[in-house]
């Protein structure tokens, strides 16, 4: 099998190309000696079976960030048959710098000038024939977003693979390469750019989006729109899925499992099936959420958020990128933690990693959607949710402010503001599909095991009342009671919290098992069982307490420090308890 590595700067559209070429077949791959996960896919190009690897986007092969180390480690340790360098055609005169560096590696290479359509609109022409004549390296113009030129480029890649022998990159001449003079030469030969550029529509959008007063309002409005859309569009989908599961329960599972003994039926239906099906009804909401986040992310808006927030973040010892990672963490904390690899100064990276787990991820969103809908009046529920997002950001700000002296750093901050782009449906749909698969993966690992364990804890020793005080679950709950009753969390909810440590998705499933009900019946029970003050305190505690197991593992592998990981567990726990205590006691005073 041949191996192709995709290399390019951030904002060159490398991942769009990877997604277009590999479709839904991409997987996270592991390589010996490479500590991070890279996306890879197997596909047929011409007559060759090819493994295509998507390397992180980097500015500089000689650079100092962790991402740049990853690329060097990969190219230095894994044989590569062909290096495919993706260049943003609209920024070719700058991005070809990476080409000049990559050329010194001694690997066979093809250069793809991506976003040729966008470059043409800006009046920038790329002369690929002149490029090849000047450098001896094949080049193609493509649009990864719309697919123009991609078949021809793949044909060229297939052709080149025929002659290529796999090799390891050489780094001995990289550091000495003179880049500035050849870059001017190359740009002079191959790039035709007008002397001044027409005013782009990005400028017009930026006049509002980066406005000192309107900008922050636009940001809050965009986020509020996302959450309200999740509620509005997601609720009917959720009901639909719920009724499918109800039907399966009554029409298929009950007759099918009738011959089994009582305990086995209880375990399978009230344990595993109720737990998993309650969690599964949230999949459409989460997919919707990721669709909308993908829209925001692909549009180029997030770097504007970084611009707006940098003044505040710099006072907290962070920078605009930390804020973007915090927003990315709304999807899932794990990739956001990995995203901090672009930061060079370790204290800055650690401080960012300390606050990211406080951001309200989609798994926690499930819990809040469920409890919010069950316990709060319908018109309050979206605002209760928005308040949790604000708490999440406030907790991050407070944490950064408290720890800014311990993790003091001084890193120059330079970030690109790419032009606004309309995301394609294909790319957004693909993102959604990856999330569904991610959910199924987590479901098979954590959720089934989690809910099964909850059922056992609530039903053992044999003969006790389900989830009663005599059960193992009840005993665990009563040990922790002195700690959790001041914040209004009772024995049953304590157990849900314990399992939320494994994965927050398990919490709703765990409650289904603990209360012996699923779906809307569980919601009704919770509404009777919990006061508003208890429900809100429980949601706040869930928001802030220990990160899930995957996040914890990522914190440890990225920080390579047990002490830091311990801090990232203990501090949020203390913060969660304090916040929930204030909220619970406060709400009780006003009669909640």
């Amino acid at each position, binding site marked *: 099998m041949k191996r192709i590595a995709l290399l390019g700067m951030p904002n060159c559209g490398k991942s769009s190309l990877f997604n277009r070429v590999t479709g839904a077949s991409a997987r996270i791959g592991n390589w010996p000696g490479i500590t991070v996960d890279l996306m890879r896919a197997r596909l047929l190009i011409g007559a060759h079976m090819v493994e295509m690897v998507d390397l992180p986007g980097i*500015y500089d092969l000689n650079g100092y960030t962790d991402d740049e180390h990853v690329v060097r480690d990969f190219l230095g340790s894994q044989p590569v048959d062909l290096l495919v360098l993706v260049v943003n055609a609209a920024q070719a*005169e700058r991005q070809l710098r990476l080409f000049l560096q990559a050329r010194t590696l001694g690997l066979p290479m093809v250069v793809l000038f991506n976003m040729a359509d966008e470059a043409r609109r800006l009046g920038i022409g790329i002369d690929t024939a002149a490029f090849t004549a000047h450098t001896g390296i094949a080049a193609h113009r493509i649009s990864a977003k719309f697919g123009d030129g991609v078949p021809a480029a793949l044909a060229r890649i297939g052709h080149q693979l025929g002659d290529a022998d796999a090799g390891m990159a050489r780094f001995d001449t990289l550091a000495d390469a003179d880049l500035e003079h050849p870059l001017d030469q190359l740009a002079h030969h191959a790039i035709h750019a007008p002397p001044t550029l027409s005013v782009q529509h990005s400028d017009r959008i930026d006049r509002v989006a980066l406005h000192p007063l309107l900008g922050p309002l636009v940001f809050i409005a965009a986020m509020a729109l996302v959450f309200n859309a999740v509620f509005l569009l997601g609720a009917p989908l959720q009901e639909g899925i719920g009724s499918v599961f109800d039907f399966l329960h009554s029409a298929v599972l009950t007759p099918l499992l009738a011959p089994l003994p009582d305990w086995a039926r209880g375990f399978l239906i009230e344990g595993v099936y109720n737990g998993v099906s309650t969690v599964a009804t949230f999949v459409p909401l989460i997919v919707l959420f990721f669709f909308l986040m993908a829209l925001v992310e692909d549009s180029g808006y997030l770097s504007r958020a*970084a*611009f*707006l927030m940098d003044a505040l973040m710099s006072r907290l010892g962070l920078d605009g990128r930390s804020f973007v990672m915090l927003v990315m963490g709304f999807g899932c904390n794990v990739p956001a933690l990995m995203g901090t690899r672009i930061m060079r100064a370790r204290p800055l990276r650690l401080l960012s990693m300390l606050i990211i787990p406080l951001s309200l991820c989609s798994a926690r969103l499930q819990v809040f959607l469920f409890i919010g809908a069950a316990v709060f009046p319908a018109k309050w529920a979206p605002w209760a949710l928005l308040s949790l997002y604000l708490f999440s950001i406030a907790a991050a700000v407070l944490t950064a402010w408290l720890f800014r002296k311990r993790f003091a750093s001084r890193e*120059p901050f*330079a*970030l690109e503001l*790419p032009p606004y782009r309309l995301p394609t449906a294909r790319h957004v749909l693909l993102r959604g599909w990856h999330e569904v698969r991610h959910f199924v993966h987590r479901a098979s690992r954590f959720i089934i095991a989690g809910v099964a364990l909850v059922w056992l804890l609530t039903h053992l020793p044999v003969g006790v009342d389900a989830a009663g005080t005599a059960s193992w679950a009840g005993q665990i709950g009563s040990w922790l009671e002195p700690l959790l009753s001041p914040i209004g969390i009772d024995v049953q909810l304590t157990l849900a919290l314990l399992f939320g440590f494994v994965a927050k998705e398990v919490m709703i499933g765990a409650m289904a098992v603990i209360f012996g009900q699923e779906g809307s019946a569980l919601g009704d029970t919770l509404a009777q069982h919990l006061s508003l003050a208890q429900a809100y305190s429980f949601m706040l505690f869930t928001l802030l307490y220990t990160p899930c197991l995957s996040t914890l593992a990522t914190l440890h592998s990225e920080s390579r420090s047990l002490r830091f990981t311990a801090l990232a567990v203990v501090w949020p726990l203390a913060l969660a308890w304090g916040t929930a205590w204030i909220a619970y006691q406060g709400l009780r005073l006003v009669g909640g």
Partner: protein
Amino acid sequence: MCALSELETGRDAQVVGLRADHDFAQRLHALGVRIGRTVRIVRRGALNGPLQLRIGTTDIMLRRTEAALIDTHPATVGV
């Protein structure tokens, strides 16, 4: 000559000197900030926030403290 941080918003200027350390100079080169290039401040962030710079077709943001390390020669004719 004036430091980039002091340059008038909207006015073109030529980069004539970088006083950044090696690593940061490399990063600036990768983003297109090099001696001889024309640069302009598109806007200044509120509350002493970062600068939005335009170099050719690339927009970047840079903090004022870092922009102070870049020497420029403002164009005599305003744009």
